[in-house]
């Protein structure tokens, strides 16, 4: 896998609801190589504060037009700068980085479980899987404004905290109801740790293979700094999983959850 370091052009950077934005970049090399679950590592500004790059999942790729999208929430300095990047501006982006989701399946029932901004990588994944599989998605957000735009697979079952869309409550409850109704062949999840832990339990209970995408603070994004260590399961607990290089996607069984 080759990385690409590019000055890429902002094509669009628009609010999709609340404090969440959809960034579209003209990045041919990244668009050509990107796989669902991979991320890009970008400098939000040109100055030295914030100093580090910020990782964002690849939300969508338009290979024909060489576009790459990320969908981000403004949570701090970096994302607040990014929000102000206008169309035409160039950004310093490297990617695609990391190991993506296992997508070597066909004719299957695939379940996508996303919480908050963890929905982002599942949007790219869902679009790819839907070409050869039946995609069932379960999205949990605070309220309606946090739902993602531009769906390319069947409508998700939604749970909101405030009841403004779908069901009020937890996405994992919606997931379990569906698991009681029909068998899933594989699950993919990304979201807050507490949600992931619950999905891990459900996957065990219903005996379904599960892949998770983990988040961790990152500096280099390419395996050089050892900053993004995540705990491994089992006897192999001597070393760590590097979220940036071994992941961010892992089989749930590789990760220590307690």
């Amino acid at each position, binding site marked *: 896998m080759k990385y690409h370091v590019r000055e890429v052009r902002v094509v669009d950077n628009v609010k999709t609801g609340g404090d969440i934005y959809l960034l579209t970049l003209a990045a041919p090399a990244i668009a050509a190589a990107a796989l669902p679950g991979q991320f890009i590592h970008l400098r939000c500004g040109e100055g030295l504060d914030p100093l580090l790059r910020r990782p964002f999942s690849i939300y969508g790729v338009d290979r024909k037009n060489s576009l790459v999208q990320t969908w981000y929430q403004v949570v701090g300095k970096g994302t607040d700068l990014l929000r102000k990047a206008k169309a035409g501006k160039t950004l310093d982006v490297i990617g695609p980085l990391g190991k993506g989701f296992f997508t070597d399946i066909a004719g299957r029932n695939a379940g996508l479980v996303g919480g908050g901004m963890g929905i982002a990588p599942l949007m790219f994944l869902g679009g790819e899987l839907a070409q050869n599989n039946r995609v069932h998605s379960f999205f949990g957000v605070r309220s309606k404004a946090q739902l993602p735009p531009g769906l390319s697979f069947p409508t998700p079952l939604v749970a909101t905290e405030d009841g403004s869309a779908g069901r009020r409550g937890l996405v994992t409850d919606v997931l379990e109801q569906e698991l009681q109704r029909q068998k899933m062949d594989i699950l993919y999840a990304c979201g807050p740790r507490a949600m992931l832990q619950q999905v891990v339990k459900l996957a065990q209970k219903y005996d379904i293979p599960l892949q998770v995408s983990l988040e961790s603070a990152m500096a280099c994004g390419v395996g050089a*700094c050892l900053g993004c260590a995540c705990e491994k399961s089992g006897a192999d607990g001597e070393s760590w999983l590097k979220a940036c290089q071994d992941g961010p996607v892992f089989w749930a069984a590789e990760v220590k959850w307690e």
Partner: protein
Amino acid sequence: MKPDLTVFLAGIKMKNPVMTASGTYGFGDAYTDFYALGELGALVVKGVTLEPRRGNPPPRLAETPAGLLNSIGLENPGVEAVLKHYLPGLSQAGTPVIVNIAGNSIDDYVRVAERLHASPVVKALEVNISCPNVKCGGLAFGSEPGMASQVIGAVKRHSRLPVIAKLSPNVTDIGEIALAVEEAGADAISLINTLVGMKIDIKKRRPALANLVGGLSGPAVRPVAVRMVYEVSQKVKVPLIGLGGIITAEDALEFIMAGASAVAVGTGNFINPCCCREIIAGLTAYCETNKIANITALTGAAWRYDDGSC
């Protein structure tokens, strides 16, 4: 005419004065998709200990204004695994390979150094007596001249390889430590390792790092590092490797003019993965513009303004 960037340091010939900083470049494998290792003046790999080390629990990183706090804690697979799995692949690196070593006791340092003789790839040892992220060892050896000189002296006696002492800035008198390691036989000195620092997460009302404290690096520490290079380079005869917050060729030039013979880039690689390559190009351009035939002429260029009041 193309300026000559060659420098000789600790018996090693380097095609340019730009090296990588230990712990920020893995074992040379992380950045090869951006440019070839052979472009570097030298490659300094991650700190290696006798036994494998698990390092500290996450979170291990916290960002501060123009700085990075890390508490990796010398995670490494141990010297045997490094000899077996990492060093052989570097035989074609096209650049001198320097292994950074650390230990909990003088005996540890000596044994790692001796084991590394087994590898024809290793051109020098950089002895880390300055890691702020491990409970015993590391910094404990670097904060007192007597201890510093014992470690460096012991490694020097047992090693046929050139020895570079990497010093900590977390000391009262850096000059005193530098003189001690020079006397103990160090062939060169690296200045600086990270500064002990801390960040509090005010949302969680707890330290941002699981290890509570970490080592500060990046542009935030550069003035501290430049001052130490300036002071030490005028006290010792051995060459210095200057590092701490270097991102651009201008930053590197500051260190060289302060008295460094070579520079190393750490956190800068995370910001710009092509950092080292661009610094090398920038140094070449500076020498061309200013008609400097050999970059060594710039080492200590800023000294002559010293009236002794520093």
